[in-house]
């Protein structure tokens, strides 16, 4: 598939307040495929670009359930089925003694699901990304705030999108080559 020559139009702002306001206006102007970049988590920014819900909690819940159930099942199978061992007359299925490992396995699986689930949903690791080619984008991890309109957006138009972004009074605008 032939890629479009530009990846998107990137506007630079110098404060989180300006970025959130600009993101709101861009989203309200009907642009759907937009994203924002900031050096720290900015409150309300995800909502401003129209991203309201993420699936990390669901992944963690599933991971935790798998961990806890498999932890308990493993202990039951080992202690009561595969290798029943009479220790001081305790029942083979001595469930109170199995709670600790069940708990630890729940935490382990849920925690690893949180980390790997977050990375996977974010599409990381991704060593190369077109936005890194933008000249001032290195400041996105320091003190600058960026808003991008992707060229895949149906409303995207090289001239009119630039005019729209200029109306948001950014510090700079650049076209990101793909």
């Amino acid at each position, binding site marked *: 598939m032939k890629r479009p020559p530009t990846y998107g139009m990137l506007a630079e702002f110098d404060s*989180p307040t300006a970025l959130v306001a600009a993101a709101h206006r861009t989203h309200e102007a009907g642009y759907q495929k937009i994203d924002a970049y900031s050096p*720290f988590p900015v409150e309300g920014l995800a909502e401003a670009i129209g991203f309201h819900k993420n699936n990390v909690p669901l992944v963690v819940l599933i991971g935790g359930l798998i961990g806890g159930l498999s932890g308990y099942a493993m202990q039951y199978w080992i202690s009561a089925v595969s290798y029943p061992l009479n220790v001081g007359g305790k029942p083979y299925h001595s469930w109170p003694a199995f709670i600790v490992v069940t708990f630890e396995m729940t935490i382990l699986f849920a*925690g690893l699901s949180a980390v790997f689930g*977050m990375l996977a949903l*974010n599409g990381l690791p991704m060593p190369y990304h077109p936005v890194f080619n933008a000249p001032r984008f290195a400041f996105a*991890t*320091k003190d600058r705030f960026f808003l991008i309109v992707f060229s895949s957006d149906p409303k995207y138009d090289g001239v009119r999108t630039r005019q729209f972004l200029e109306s948001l009074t950014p510090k700079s605008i650049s076209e990101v080559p793909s």
Partner: protein
Amino acid sequence: MDERSEQAGGKQAPVIEPGYTFGSVTDKISAIVLTRPTSTSWFVGFGVFFLITMMMLYAIGYLFVRGIGIWGVNIPVGWGFAIVNFVWWIGIGHAGTLISAILLLLRQSWRNSINRFAEAMTLFAVASAGIFPLIHVGRPWLAYWMFPYPSTMGIWPQFRSPLVWDVFAVSTYFTISLVFWFIGLIPDLATLRDRSENRWARIIYGMLAMGWRGSARHWFRYETAYLLLAGLATPLVLSVHTVVSFDFATGIVPGWHTTIFPPYFVAGAIYSGFAMVLMLSIPIRKIYGLEDFITERHLDNSAKVMLATGLIVAYGYVIEAFMGWYSGNRYDAFTLWNRLHGPYAFFYYMLLACNIVIPQVLWIRKLRTKPLVLFVVAGVILVGMWLERFIIVVVSLQRDFLNSSWGMFYPTRWDWMTYIGTIGMFLAAMFLFVRILPMISIFEMRTLLPEAEVKE
């Protein structure tokens, strides 16, 4: 009241001195790693602790050749320095998780400047702790038998044993601490990737940052994951020292068989952990000029946490002594008598002085902000907490039910070399950490600045 307006009220020292911007915070912290020349004293310090680490490896190598007999352990004292040190190190690790997880859930934003190196401290402390049970098992090359895996022998671990619970608790704790620390680092690694002038540093930090670009969608999921991890790590950290205390409390040895152990162990863990945080942060803030980020407020708050947990520990001692008398059990009563008058009585009085008496100076507000005083008190507490574990492990085992089986424990030079060696390994790892990774979370410091607030 939120943190920023509280600062404006000027009641307490701020968590970050005024006048910083997003850029200057970034530059100041990343410069320690990227541009500041490595000083001779860093090489000397790292070199010394590296040699001490080598001494530990020598002691462990000799142990593998000759066996556990080179240590002072014997019958009746089968758990000597190895278990004392294990419990001590695991406890120290707890403060890191407390700071990064529990204080995050409690929205204590002062944690942001100390959580990164407290988490690193947790990792290195748990790594130091993990060495001891491994080398104490007698045949360490078979240590993997502790994990449930299908083997041709057809046998499995015994899940009714607290020692197996401990394997799961400590390995889960290490894993979760590691990933928690690492995902906290990702945005800062991206900052270092973008700031670095050196090509290799850019490549290495870039690989570790995994292409982080600070997208709003990414931050949204990131914050959710981080919060959930904090929520998971909170019960985890409380469970770990609880399970460690089960190793003792489920036994019938007088002095071990008590229900106060779980809360008292957890409080003691946080007590010693904060002492280690202070012992590390006081020299670090001085040497790297970070007094603006690790302010008097942090010292004061850490001292208050130590004071509170120290009182819980003191309550544990009182209950132990009370139950020794109130239970009417002659063996419990004798354990108390043996602590007060037995051959190791000196260490029990030292323990009371270090953990209960001396830390009471922290009630004085002026002393809580004097770095030197805090440094000394923290050192005293670390010694005291080590003595506590010595009293619990050695003095309880030394004289149990039958006086025909009484004995004494004398540590050998190998015991000391291994113990001091782990301190060297821990500090050598800290030296490497402050040199190659940002020791303060840069992106979380940015959120503390007044400009970070989105105005409507």
